[in-house]
């Protein structure tokens, strides 16, 4: 068995306290507090193989971070079974945590007041990394992430992107076979994002590192993950390749038009009334987008109709973007 992660019927419930309103309510809250039990993660099961890069996505509050906290053994599950790297994350803590690396994009794991390299030095001791291992592995990491000039600066003086690169390096000091990344690209500029993606790809290829990644930036997923697990309201609603998600849900095509004359949405709707088309207008750029079925016949007919009636400046045929697909799923749910 070489699954990096096995999750069976995993569940986590939180007590959600609600405050009563008003002064009287506040006094009553002192005695008894109202609470509801809310399942943040509701009976999920999945496996991740060694060397896989999996995108773990879902709306805000879907339960992604909660899952990661259970997989890393920080939170105790309400019920269900978790096996990570062949171990129960709650037993044998020290041995277990030495086999994982974690980056929480929203909180720093470096020591705030001291230079980055001091943090690295401490972590090196903490994970019992030998000098040879450290030199051969970290020299490369530091070079690839381009953090050499940052090493002697205290963490509090780094910008977000600089810090995040250091965080990633810190999570890799012991070269763990499994990496959990909770929103590692939050708030980063395009270049830093690209650098981090390249780097993750590289260590995945080089060391066969398993990576579980949550993000709201779907281009991260497109760049890195063949497989996505989609969570909604604590339940897994999709688990499979990104490609088949696109095929299944991205059936439509988008055709963008720009016109030489003033055009109204109602005009367009009238022109294409006979076929099933949905028009949308991007006000700023005066771009009109037609959403339609992915059918070549239909598309050429549509274009013919539009061109016959209006003067066209630019036409652009696009597949529905992943972003769009995911947005539709979040909006309407999978059914």
């Amino acid at each position, binding site marked *: 068995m070489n699954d990096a992660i096995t999750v069976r019927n995993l569940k986590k419930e939180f007590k959600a306290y609600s405050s009563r309103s008003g002064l009287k309510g506040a006094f009553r809250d002192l005695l008894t507090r109202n609470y509801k039990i809310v399942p943040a993660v509701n009976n999920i099961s999945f496996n991740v193989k060694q060397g896989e890069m999996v995108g773990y996505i879902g709306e805000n509050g879907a339960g992604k971070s909660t899952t990661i906290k259970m997989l890393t053994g920080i939170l*105790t599950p309400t019920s269900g079974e978790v096996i990570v790297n062949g171990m129960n994350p709650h037993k044998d803590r020290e041995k277990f*945590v030495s086999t994982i690396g974690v980056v929480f994009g929203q909180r720093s794991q470096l020591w705030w007041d001291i230079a980055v390299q001091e943090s690295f030095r401490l972590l090196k001791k903490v994970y019992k990394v030998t000098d040879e291992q450290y030199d051969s592995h970290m020299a490369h990491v530091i070079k690839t992430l381009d953090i050499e000039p940052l090493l002697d600066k205290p963490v509090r003086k780094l910008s977000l992107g600089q810090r995040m690169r250091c965080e990633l390096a810190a999570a890799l000091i012991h070269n763990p076979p499994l990496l959990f990344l909770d929103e590692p690209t939050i708030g980063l500029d395009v270049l830093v994002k690209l650098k981090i993606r390249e780097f993750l790809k590289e260590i995945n290829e080089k060391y066969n590192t398993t990576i579980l990644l949550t993000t709201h930036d779907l281009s991260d997923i497109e760049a890195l993950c063949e497989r996505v697990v989609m969570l909604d309201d604590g339940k897994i609603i999709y688990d499979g390749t990104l490609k088949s998600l696109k095929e299944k849900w991205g059936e439509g095509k988008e055709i963008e038009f720009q016109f030489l004359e003033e055009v109204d949405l109602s005009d367009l709707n009238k022109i294409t009334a006979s076929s099933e088309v949905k028009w949308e207008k991007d006000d700023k750029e005066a771009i009109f987008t037609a959403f339609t079925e992915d059918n070549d016949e239909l598309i050429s007919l549509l274009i013919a109709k539009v061109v016959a009636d209006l003067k066209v400046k630019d036409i652009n045929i696009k597949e529905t973007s992943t972003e769009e697909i995911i947005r539709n799923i979040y909006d309407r749910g999978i059914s």
Partner: protein
Amino acid sequence: MDKYIEMIRIRFLMMLAYRTNYYTGILIYSINIGAYYFLWSAIYGEKDAIEGMSVIQMSTYVAVAWMARAFYFNNIDREMAAEIKEGKVAVELIRPYNYLGMKTMQGLGEGIFRLFFFSVPGMAIVSFIFPLQFSADWTTWLFFAVSILLSFLINTQINLLTGITTFFLYNNTGLIRAKRVVIDLFSGLLIPISFFPVWAQDILRFLPFQGISYVPSMIFTNSFSNNEAIQAIIMQGVWVLILIMPIQVLWIIAKKQLIIQGG
């Protein structure tokens, strides 16, 4: 073990990063020592000794009690509370070390830093201003060294206990503040325990607080006989062992029901 020693070093660096804090600290401590010195001088008046302590012993007691406090005192309870409230413990819990052990080491790093850069120079300064008496007997210094290390452990353990309660109470600022007052008062920092009414002394005998300040200060001022000193140190050691239990129990319960704040 390496990692724990490294942590002490890190704490040293952090203290250095904020060294202005400790200049003001020296001032505050000196003012405290001065105030208590004059207070006790007034109380002694013409008397040679109260409760078997001469006025010089008393001023030495006050000075050493405050300087020792610089070593054993730390804010790890408040740090823990902050880390728990902000959800930072999450990061601590994914490290292959014992969180409480690391916290203790941070406290020790802080203590050693203050001992060398604060207590020792502070004591030198204070001894120029006020008449103090230092023992020439090396056993006194040895006992004092052992005793003050145990003071640190007891105080730190109490801090850990207070810190862990954040897991259960969430907001325990009041508790932390109360604990501080209780320790300053009942540890003998402000008034030697032997000056308390007998019934209070009898109660305090069964509490760990006098192991924090009273015992090392009494040893330093030679107010204990060798035998008394050894007994007191053994008592301190026993308290260190006793306190391990509630800490471990609470810690295990806390981890079970731990909720990490924030996404």
